[in-house]
Structure formats: C-alpha cells, structure tokens
C-alpha cells in the first residue's frame, strides 16, 4: 500500500494526515483511522483540488479529501473502476460543442462511463470528466455521423462554469438505450411540466445568450415591469435564479443640491 499525504475535512477544519492507496482499498490514517474498500464507495464528486468520497452502509459517510492532482487522479481512477455504480465501456466526446460553437479538435475517446448518485463520469487513459447530474441541462438519444455512418449516440448538454457544453456517448444501441433511460430518470426533476408562452421563451433564450435586462428590454420592446414579471415566472418555474438585484434610484433634495453645485462650479 502506497502512502501519500492528504488533507481531510473534519468538523469544518482541514486536518493533515496520510492515506494508503492499494488496488482494492484506501486506508485513511489518524484521526480518521478508516479502511475503505472501493466497492463500498457509492458516490464520488469532484470540487477543484478535492474529491468527496461517499461510503455506503447503514449510515452513509462522506469524506472530503484534498491532495495534489496526481494523487487525486489515481484515487478517482481506482474508485471509479471498482465502486458501486452503473458502468459501461463506451466512446465519448467531451466537450463536442461549447456555447453553441463546435469544438474543432474534439475527438472520440475510448474509455468507461460510470453513473453514480450525483454525477456521470467519463474515464479514459488521458481524461477524467465529471458531469454533476444537477448541471445536466438535457439528455437526448440522437444520431451522429461517425466515419461516414449514422450512429446512435446519447447527447448530454451540461453546464461548466455557466457555459453550456455538449458531450456525446457512443456504445452499442441496447446499452445506449439503458443508459439513456437511466440518465433520463436520474434527471427527471429537470423536465418542465408546462410550456412557456413565446415571449417568455424569447426572454429565456436571450438570457441564455448572455443578454442583460437592458438589452432584453430594448430588443423585445418591453417595459421594465413586464420584464420583471417574466423573470418572476422563470424563477417560479425553477428555470432561472436571481443573479443580483440592480437598484433604480432617484436623487433626494440633498443629492439635487450637490449635483447642482458641482455642475455650477464646473461650468463657471
């Protein structure tokens, strides 16, 4: 078992310790003192230079571990290969489209897909890509031309740092159908129960494209109040959230007096 230095979060504090990594388990030294077989892991999440390892059992426990990239890479690979998850061999392309623009040098990678409780992982020799289920915008079973053949693929639109990214998964059709159904079920909360009216849809499209309130009002020729009402409808439907609230102000008598005096002195 190879020992590596890590930091682990305990009661809100980062505690330095060591972790032994073996082919089938890890052992976290004091003060945790716990051996974790990879097959007992039910979830794995990635947050910058940390991973969150959730161990199943009567009571699930999540360990937040920080370490150097190389250690986390090996740890993730070992866990994803053996943990409790829906796993399949597949080809994937991620990202294939970024913000609506095709990624010119995107290529298919051969590897493994692992679907865990909170995310989908693509693992190849070179890459480890995690798509948290909460960041999945849509899942489609579609076809794509690959080497002059139209093949069925699963297409996933997801958010990375507020940018919409499209990834593709390619595997035999029967497996693809199972994967599609599985992902669809896992992300069912994202479905809209009813369709929005055309104006609200246009506003949502403009927000998606990065337009601010002022630009949207100008483009659609609608009032501030009408736009606010549409925003409220989008928020109530759970498809948008408040980024910030901008104030509209008017000057008090003191303010008017100050501005008048400033302008007076500058024009004298």
């Amino acid at each position, binding site marked *: 078992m190879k020992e590596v230095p890590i930091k682990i979060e305990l009661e809100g504090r980062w505690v330095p310790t060591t972790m032994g990594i073996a082919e089938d388990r890890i052992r976290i030294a004091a003060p945790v003192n716990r051996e974790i077989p990879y097959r007992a892991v039910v979830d794995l999440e990635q947050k910058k230079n940390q991973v969150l390892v959730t161990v199943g059992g009567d009571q699930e426990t999540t360990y937040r571990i920080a370490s150097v990239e190389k250690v986390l890479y090996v740890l993730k690979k070992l866990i994803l290969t053996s943990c409790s998850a829906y796993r399949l061999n597949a080809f994937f392309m991620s990202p294939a489209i970024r*913000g*609506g*623009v095709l990624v010119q040098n995107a290529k298919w990678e051969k590897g493994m897909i692992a679907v865990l409780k909170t995310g989908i992982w693509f693992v190849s020799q070179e890459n480890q890509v995690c798509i948290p289920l909460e960041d999945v915008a849509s899942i489609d079973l579609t076809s794509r031309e690959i080497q002059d053949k139209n093949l069925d693929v699963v297409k996933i639109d997801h958010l990375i740092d507020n940018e919409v990214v499209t990834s593709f998964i390619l595997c035999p059709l029967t497996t693809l159908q199972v994967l599609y159904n599985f992902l669809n079920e896992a992300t069912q909360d994202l479905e809209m129960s009813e369709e929005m009216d055309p104006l609200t849809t246009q506003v949502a499209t403009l927000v998606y494209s990065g337009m601010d309130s002022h630009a949207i009002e100008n483009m659609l020729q609608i009032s501030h109040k009408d736009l606010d009402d549409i925003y409220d409808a989008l928020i109530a439907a759970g498809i948008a959230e408040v980024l910030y609230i901008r104030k509209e102000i008017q000057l008090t008598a003191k303010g008017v007096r100050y501005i008048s005096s400033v302008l007076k002195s500058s024009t004298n």
Partner: protein
Amino acid sequence: MGRILIVDDTMFMRTLLKNILFSGGHDIVGEAGDGDEAIAKYQELRPDLVTMDVIMPKVNGIEALKAIKSADPSAKVIMCTAVGQEQMVKLAIKSGARGYIVKPFQAPKVLEEVKNVLSSA
C-alpha cells in the same frame, strides 16, 4: 473588427446576433431573411463575414453558401443552425463554411468563433 452580413429567417435571431456582434465591436452591414436575399446582399455589400442560418424558406443556407463561394471563393461564412441538426456540419464544411454555431448559442463563444474566422487566412 469586421463588416458582417446576418442571414436568418427569424427577426428574433437576427436581432440577437446583431446585438451580440455589435457588442463585440463589429459593424452589421446588412441583414437577409432567406438564401436568395443573402446572395444578392453579399454581391452588393461584400462583407468580411456572413453568419448564415441553414434552414430557411426558398433557397436554404447550404445552397446560398455554395452560390456565395462560387462567386467569391474567399468568402468567410459561419453556418448557424438549431440543435439536433449537427449532421449538416460536414455538408456545410465541405461546401466551404469556415465555422459552425449551434442555436441556442452564448455570446462569448459566438464572438470567439467570429474572431477566429475573421483572423484566418
């Protein structure tokens, strides 16, 4: 910064693209609502770049792209189509498109693609 012709059959998408491109410092020299109009406007305005919708009434975007490229082989055209029609990419690239954007799109990425195509030889 470039002089750009926007081709799309919906005014909403034209207005959106116009706003995005204008915010990136580009000049919008014209707009067209179908492929026929696009070919005529290209001849008249000779823009640095065209954003071309694929699915349009009358002459579609691919046919308009071919006509523009046969009249001016150096024409720079970025194709623009709805999600799910990515299979058109190969045909468009084969027909001479320099880039491809998929609706819905995000402003920074569109500006990046436009910049790349404008600066390409």
